[in-house]
């Protein structure tokens, strides 16, 4: 680490450093501020866990798709038009009555952007990264998720070569729901493995 540990509000804090860098790189023709605006807009609004939720709902409803997803998640997502940076090397792992999967990136913040968007702050935190492997049940308990002792917990450490999406268990009471309504039930946290999906209220999807 280097010397410049200034904090936030000073003029030489990170906001000013980013501004200086953007100006320099723009003048050199290496970045285009309009493209930067588009990237921010895309990752704040267009790319997000709703895409992964569609994948999960389709896997629940379509057995042939489900097989393709577990065989080759990148191609299966591409069928649905879901692809993009950090989307290569995607692997889908399935929660069952006997196995619960949890995803972490212990070294940094590798995460499957096209299906889940950018990772939440806690996923990048030291606490999560340092404990998810050594104490996964303890970490999940802090999220309010108790995994019974007889269920095997598998922790997947993401890397440049491999990203993961958890296909959670379809909740009881959701049999009558359409694929689109099922997708509404699927949460970001359930696709990382720190949550289960609650049964739909009265077999109808909860409105938001």
């Amino acid at each position, binding site marked *: 680490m280097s010397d410049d540990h200034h904090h936030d509000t000073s003029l030489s804090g990170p906001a000013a450093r980013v501004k200086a860098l953007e100006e320099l790189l723009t003048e050199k023709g290496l970045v285009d501020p309009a493209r930067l605006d588009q990237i921010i807009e895309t990752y704040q609004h267009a790319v997000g866990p709703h895409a992964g939720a569609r994948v999960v709902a389709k896997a629940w409803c379509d057995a042939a798709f489900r097989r393709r997803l577990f065989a080759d998640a990148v191609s299966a997502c591409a069928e649905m038009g879901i692809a993009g940076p950090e989307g290569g090397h995607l692997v889908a792992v399935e929660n069952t009555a006997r196995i619960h999967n949890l995803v972490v990136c212990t070294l940094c913040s590798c995460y499957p952007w096209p299906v889940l968007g950018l990772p939440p702050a806690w996923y990048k*935190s030291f*606490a999560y990264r340092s404990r998810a492997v050594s104490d996964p049940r303890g970490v999940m308990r802090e999220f309010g998720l108790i995994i019974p002792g007889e269920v095997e917990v598998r922790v997947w450490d993401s890397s440049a070569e491999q990203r993961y999406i958890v296909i959670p268990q379809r909740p009881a009471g959701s049999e009558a729901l359409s694929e689109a309504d099922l997708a509404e039930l699927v949460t970001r946290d359930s696709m990382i493995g720190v949550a289960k999906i609650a049964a739909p209220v009265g077999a109808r999807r909860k409105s938001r």
Partner: protein
Amino acid sequence: MNDRGLESLLAGIAPEGGEIFSAPWEARAFAIALGLSEAGVFSWDEFRARLIEEIGAADRVRERDGTSSHGEYYQHFLRAIERTAADKGIASAAEVALRLSALEGSGR
């Protein structure tokens, strides 16, 4: 494990669909890194190697000193951009420092 782990973990839990960036500069830094990799100035994997080094160095300090801070991710991210840009010869530390003092001088 311990209370600081619990506290910092829960402090970072955003509601579903919560803000991805906690300050505008974080979003801008992310976009600069992705924009430079789109433009082929460096690959995302090259950038990630720097990011891992920055995060790893901070993790070692935390393990040693027992300090905890979940909010510093984009500080590491920015350092990783600055280092990668300097390594690639597209923006040296001196150039950035000069621009920074010009910005400060102009009060922008």
